[in-house]
């Protein structure tokens, strides 16, 4: 709840502090993660994530509803929500940050960018820096990024019994398609 309020406050500041046409919101998103061990491959996909990017001050927010990750194996999905991410207690994973490079993202082109900020998963904040690619077209923006999440960084416990089935490091791929934000 606290995180949600912070996010609302964050977005409201966006609204008042910046010009409307500089604000882009995601209309399509795809976040997937992958864990590979000799015993078991785990992959899941989420298309319910939301993101807003502000071109004037290059600030970026992402919010992912954790329980919307779809697994092929439904039992895995249940365990993911119940035992590992505890999605009823921590319904969202979020990223709040800023693109480091000073770029004019109004011009069409492909830019490789770095963003630093706070990644919150399982209720645990981590200061992170990500690199990705932004493709600017006529009135759309595509952000693509890939990064790793260490389970230990976010206090996600794995019992010894299934230790060998779940990798300690999870690879995440994310892509967002943005359009100019309209109220």
């Amino acid at each position, binding site marked *: 709840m606290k995180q949600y309020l912070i996010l609302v406050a964050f977005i409201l500041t966006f609204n008042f502090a910046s010009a409307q046409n500089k604000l882009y919101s995601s209309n399509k998103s795809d976040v997937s993660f992958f864990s590979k061990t000799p015993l078991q491959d785990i992959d899941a996909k989420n298309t319910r994530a939301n993101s807003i990017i502000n071109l004037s001050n290059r600030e970026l927010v992402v919010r992912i509803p954790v329980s919307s990750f779809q697994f092929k194996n439904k039992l895995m999905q*249940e365990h993911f929500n119940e035992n590992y991410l505890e999605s009823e207690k921590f319904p969202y994973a979020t990223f709040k940050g800023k693109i480091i490079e000073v770029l004019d993202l109004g011009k069409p082109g492909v830019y490789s960018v770095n963003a630093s900020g706070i990644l919150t998963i399982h209720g645990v904040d981590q200061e992170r820096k990500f690199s990705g690619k932004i493709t600017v077209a006529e009135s759309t923006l595509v952000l693509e990024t890939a990064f790793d999440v260490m389970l230990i960084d976010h206090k996600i416990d794995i019992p010894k019994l299934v230790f060998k089935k779940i990798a300690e490091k999870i690879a995440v791929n994310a892509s967002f398609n943005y359009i100019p934000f309209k109220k």
Partner: protein
Amino acid sequence: MKLVSDSNEVFVRTATFKARRIINGHSVETVGKNNLDFIISHRFDRLNRGFEDFFGLDAATNRLGLEYGINDRFMIGMGRSSFQKAFDYLTKYKLIRQSTGSINTPVSVTLFGGHAIRTQKTVPQLSAFDRSSYTAQILIARKFSEAFSLQISPTLIHRNRADIFTDNRTVLASGIGGRMKLTKRTSINGEYNYVFPNQINDNYKNNLAFSFDLETGGHVFQLLFTNSFGMTERQFITETDGSWGSGDIHFGFNISRTFSFEKKKKVNP
């Protein structure tokens, strides 16, 4: 503005119970799409058999069951019990899922229908019709918190031929069951099946059971104590003859193992 308001998100409350059974009776849970559940259940003899029969462990009945999810709401299953050599077939449909967010639903509702037939030879031999029974249940459950869930299960059982001819052939009952989570992977369950009065012989008792559930990866283990030998609805709801007060308590367990048959998609790591 979609990102600011939460109005477009629906959070379905999952895992109201760990297994497809609270203990003997069905829970609101169904098997996931293309998942197959293999359930091995044992009930040992009564604890009050004493040391000579090693507190009932010398004799046991079992039920082997397979349950398959057609989709995430609809499942089918079958089982075979050694007790009365009963075969049972069942379907379950998750009608309503408890959720919060833009759609606020206070309870989960699952419909259950089952058919069971005894195949043990009797004298005189009864027709297949006479050996059959049918069960319909409306399972209504609410996950009150992360740890506590409660379910009531109004039940209708129809036996084409009751063992005691003065018994009603159609019996109305209601189950109540709950679980209390101890840790993320363990819980204590309780279940009571109440048969409304003046339907069956007074020598039959209501079914009462307690269990300890342990979940490990793809398995759910339920270690339980109950006063009935049988594991199909007719057997444990309408034909339980053990009494907790006299020590007619059966130790038993259910082990459920889930297999996934979802096709593996190639993923680029």
